[in-house]
Structure formats: structure tokens, C-alpha cells
């Protein structure tokens, strides 16, 4: 390894930070939850999750949290995902495909506009965890 200059140090920091930022538990602008119950997985939620991850990586943004959760109860419309922008009500998307996922990510998560044609509705169940 070559000797670092102060600029190199900053570059390493930026690069490494992107990878580890997730651990900091800070505030996120957007949270994407892929529902991965048995039903979801059977309907192809894994593909959806991967598609979101690819998008996230390409976007290089660090303020988006991608997570998974269990079955949302609407097993017939899986795969499903919930997108929640901070300060706004969560939106549930149903019958997702990889193509749809990309669109939702670009338009809603990045752009801030709800993609109404894939959305189920607003709101989320109350949880008591």
C-alpha cells in the first residue's frame, strides 16, 4: 500500500463510510420494506429485494434504508413492498416485478412522487412489537 496523503485519508473515509453508515442508526430520508413472509418469498420477493439493492447501490445514496419484514397479510398480492418517506405516510405497492421495482425506486424513493398505478393504498398496520 502506498503512503497516504490527507486527501487519500478523506477518500478512504468516504468510501468506507458508505458501507458502514448503516450501523450508525441515524435518520433516514426514506425507508423501503420488502415483505418477506413465506408467501412473499414464494411469490418472488427475493428478486424484488435484489432489485432494490441494485438500485440502491447504483444511486450511491446513503440516506435510504432498505429492510425486510414479515408477511403483510395480503398474501395473494405478493410480492409487496412499503415505501416510507420521512414525514409522509407509508405507501404499499403490490404485485411487484423487477421492472416495477425500478420505476418505484426512481420515481418515488428518489423523486418523491408516489407511483399510483402500482400502489395498494396509504397507511400501515399498527404494530405492538
Amino acid at each position, binding site marked *: 500500500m502506498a*503512503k497516504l496523503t*490527507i486527501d487519500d485519508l478523506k477518500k478512504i473515509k468516504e468510501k468506507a463510510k*458508505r*458501507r*458502514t453508515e448503516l450501523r450508525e442508526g441515524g435518520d433516514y430520508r426514506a425507508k423501503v*420494506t420488502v415483505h418477506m413472509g413465506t408467501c412473499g418469498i414464494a411469490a418472488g420477493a427475493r428478486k424484488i429485494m435484489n432489485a432494490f439493492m441494485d438500485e440502491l447501490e447504483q444511486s450511491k445514496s446513503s440516506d435510504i434504508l432498505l429492510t425486510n419484514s*414479515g408477511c403483510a397479510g395480503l398474501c395473494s398480492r405478493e410480492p409487496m413492498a412499503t415505501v416510507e418517506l420521512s414525514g409522509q405516510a407509508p405507501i404499499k405497492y403490490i404485485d411487484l416485478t423487477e421492472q416495477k421495482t425500478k420505476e418505484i425506486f426512481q420515481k418515488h424513493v428518489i423523486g418523491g412522487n408516489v407511483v399510483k398505478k402500482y400502489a395498494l393504498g396509504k397507511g400501515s398496520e399498527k404494530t405492538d412489537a
Partner: protein
Amino acid sequence: MEKANEKAYRLHLMVCAGTACVSNNSFGIKDALEKEINKQGLEDEVLVVTTGCNGFCERGPLLVVQPGNVFYQQLEEKDIPHLVEEHFLKGRPVKKLMYKPPKEKSPIPILSDINFFKKQVLIALRNRGLIDPEKIDEYIARDGYSALAKALTEMEPKQIINEVKDSGLRGRGGGGFPTGLKWEFVSKSSTNGQERYIVCNGDEGDPGAFMDRSILEADPHAVIEGMIIGAKAIGASKGFVYVRNEYPLAVSRLIKALEQARGYGLLGKDILGSGFDFDIKIVRGAGAFVCGEETALMASIEGRLGEPRPRPPYPAEKGLWDNPTCINNVETWANVPVIINRSADWYSNIGTKTSKGTKVFSLVGKINNTGLVEVPMGITLREIIEDIGGGIPDGKKFKAVQTGGPSGGCIPAKNIDLPIDYESLTEVGSMMGSGGMVVMDEDTCMVDVAKYFISFTQNESCGKCTPCREGTKAMYEILDRITKGEGKEEDIDLLEDLAKSIKDSALCGLGNTAPNPVLTTLKYFKDEYEIHIKEKKCPAHVCRELNTYTIDEKTCLDVGHGCDLCRKNCSANAISGETKTAHQVIQEKCIKCGVCYDVCRFDAVKVK
């Protein structure tokens, strides 16, 4: 590894790989996790990271899931498949593996909601559980080496010293000498054309203390960065880390960290292009407690017999090979980068008037949550014991807390609202020490505690000066006979005289402070000594030779139906009776081993 570094992951599983968790099979957990993740095809989504000590050692092996800060504890390999499928695949956190405080019904899923973590303020342990200590990039990601960059390029040595001085940071190894002032002395003492040295004292030897080990294991770069900044401030070009060889994990992580830092040019010639040269060498100590004393430590580094010499001259004047040397403790060094990064003002806002910042304690003994905690100075003992520590197990009463290791003293329950700082601890006869905190409940015999600590210092005394070598031995002999019921009335006075004289006339800190456990127990628990001597009884029933064992015949017969277990286990044949009859202890034969008391499942054996 490179691939892992480049990729982004959805989940980071922070597996604690501190010594305590490692000994609880955390590497087994890590392997099981990786195996299971591969099985579920999650290897591109979930990353397993080994971190340094998380602190909540009581509950190891530990796993923190990020993002979300979900805290899993006391994991076993068999739990892993279920955990991976439920949480990491299906997103349903597993409640039964979460921490449930005693007396409470539901578990607490989030780490930061757990009382143990809630009241802690992390400065020295700022990276704990968040980085892999073996990856320098992860340290850099969390502002690592940015303080060094600042110190090397934007600050004059004098400014660095002033910043540390203004921060109010004091030596965390026990003495509490203002760090900045020490640096100033070293930087001003003449070298006669020779070098100045930086030394990191990692010879942690107090029984039950593991602060330094934890820092070295969890965040070795923090210590290295602090040392380089210190070197710049005092104008040193060579540093030594003295770490005991009983800490193999700390040594191996330190070696790795030094290699990485050298690889990045953060050690060696022309650091970060600033023209400043500095390098660090590891010296492994052979485990003598006295080598934690700075003059003995230096002798050991020089390859001589590890025994202290009189001060003055202080190391700042004549240290290693008679050159000015700056010795600070691991924790002190780990604080330095934060002070430089976040300013002296910020740091000095934490803590009390005379004691600034935070202190790491290892909380052990009769307490629910044993582990490593970092708390702001000025926090009360009550907050540590009741809130962070979760109180005393089994509903017992809190009796005393011993701080400062074998050099410290016992603080009685009545002082539980004592705010913790250097001065207040000294005032009650104890000391900050390196941060050991042993909690004792009502079942603890204070004479026995004093005897334990004196036996430790007696074994660890280097033997150079008379009061420490002979005095600790004499004190041990007296305490030993008191616990055996052979104490004489004049023994208390003799003990007190001895303790005071040793404190006055011993050569080094080890001897000066060795009588503290005796002095404080005599001060706060004199009645216990008197009962031992006059009534030949131990109120806590710890000193077995003073106990009398009897069997409550009614309980034995009615509840236990004369189970005969005690008689079978009695090696002295001192119990009479047979199955379904009440048993008796034959006092003349009883050797007071206490086995009957331990084995009786019906509490029929009574001890007086």
C-alpha cells in the same frame, strides 16, 4: 475481503469478538451465522462483522443487528438457523433471543433502550460494536485518523498540549495526573541530543479489571492515533506499547493494527506528508502486576528487572534510558483523538469540576449486569449499580463496592450517592484506580475481602522495599488468623498501625495503596473485625472456620424426609442419621467445610 469491502449490504451483523464473548463461543456463532446465511442465499445481502467488546459481557455471546440496533444475547449455535430465517430473511425479529431484564416480563429489542447502555457515554469506547477492529478502513470511516491529520497539519505542538490541558483530561491509569501538564513537562525537559519516548501502559493487572484489554481489542487504532498525536506534541519519534502477554487477542489485534497503520504511512517516516516521523513497538510484559507501575514498566522495557525506583526523577525528566518519557494509560491515549477532533471545550463540558470526560469501569461482582461501562465523571454509584448494573441479584442487599482494584478501598452502602470523580473517591479512602468496580452484597465478609486483596498485593509485591514486602505479608498473616478465629484484640490496632506505616513509607504506588482495602474496611466495617475477634463468628458466614453448622431436625424430617444427602457427602463422617430420620451434625467431628450446607436442597442445614 476486498469484495466484501466494495459491496453494499442490507444487513450488518455485529458479532462481539471481545475476549469474554470469544470464550463463550462467539466465533462458533459467527461461523454458524455465515453457514446459515449461505444456505439461505443471503450472502450478498447480509454481512457478518466481528467487533471488539460490546461491554455487556454478562450476556455473551452477543449480536447486534444493524440497521435497527437489535440486540441479541446469550446465543447458542442451535438458535442460529431459526434466527437467520426469521429475522434476516423474513424480517421478524426473534424475541426469545433478546435481553429481558430481571423482574420484567417483555424483552427489550433495541440496544439503546436497554438500561445498561442507556446511561453510558462513549468516548474511549466510541467505536465499540460498530467497527471491525481488524479493518483500518472502518476506523477511518468513523473519523479515525482525522484528529491526527488535524494535529499534524493544522496545529503546533504547543497548541496540541494546550488543547489537552484545557480539556481537563487526567490519567486514566489510576493516578489522575493531568495529561496535558505531563505532556508539557516532557516537552520541556532537556534531552541532551537524545530522543523522547512515548509509552502506552497496557499492563492492566487489577483482579476483575479489563478496560484496557477491551479498548486494545476493540479499537487498537484509537490508541495508536492518540500516541502519534502525543508524539507530535512532545517531539518523540519512538513509542512503546507495553501490553501483557496474557492478552493474546489484544496483542494480535495491535500487531495487525500497527501493520495496517504502517502500510498507510500513518506510522513511519513522513506521516501524511507532514515530515513527522514516528513508530511504535510492542513490548510484551510477563505478567508482573508491579510492572504497571511506571518506573518498573520502564525497567522492564529496558530489559531490566521489573522493580520500581524512587521518584523523582519522574519519567518526564528521566524515563526510558534516562531520556524524557511520556507514559499514559491505554484509556488516556484513546481519549486523545476525540479531544483534538471535538475540541477541549466540548470535552470539558462532560464531567465534574475537577474530573472531566468519561471513565470506563469494569463492573463485576454481585451485580446483575456485569460488563464494561463508560460513564461520565460525576455519575453516582447508585446510577451505576442500580440503573446500569441492574441491581444486586437474588434480591440481596447491597453492602459495599470496591473500586480501584487492590489499591482501592471499599465504599460502604451509605455512600451510594457518591458522585464518582478522582477527589470524592480519594476522600472516602478509595481511589479511581484503573477502573475496577467490584460490587458486594450482604453475603460478603469484609475481613475476607481485605484478606483477598492483601493476598493479591502480597503475591505481586516486587519485594524491593521492606514495608511492601514484609508489611503486606504481616498484614496477611494477621487477617488470616482473624478469619480463622485466632485473632487477638490488639490485632486491630496493629493492623491499623501497619497499614498507616506502609502507606507512609512504601516506595511506590503499589505499596502506598496496598493497605487501602484494610484501612477502608477497618473504617467502615470495624464491627465485623470485632465480631470475628471477640465472638469468633463471621456474620456473613464466609469464614468457614468460624461457622457452626447445625441441622434443623424438623425441616430435615418434614420437608426433606431425611434425604441423607448431607451424610453421604460429609467427608468427615460428622453427620449422623439415616434415610427418613432427622440428621444431626456431630460438632466434635465437623471440619466446617460447608458441604452439607451447599448440598442440602431443603435449607435444613443452618449456619451460625
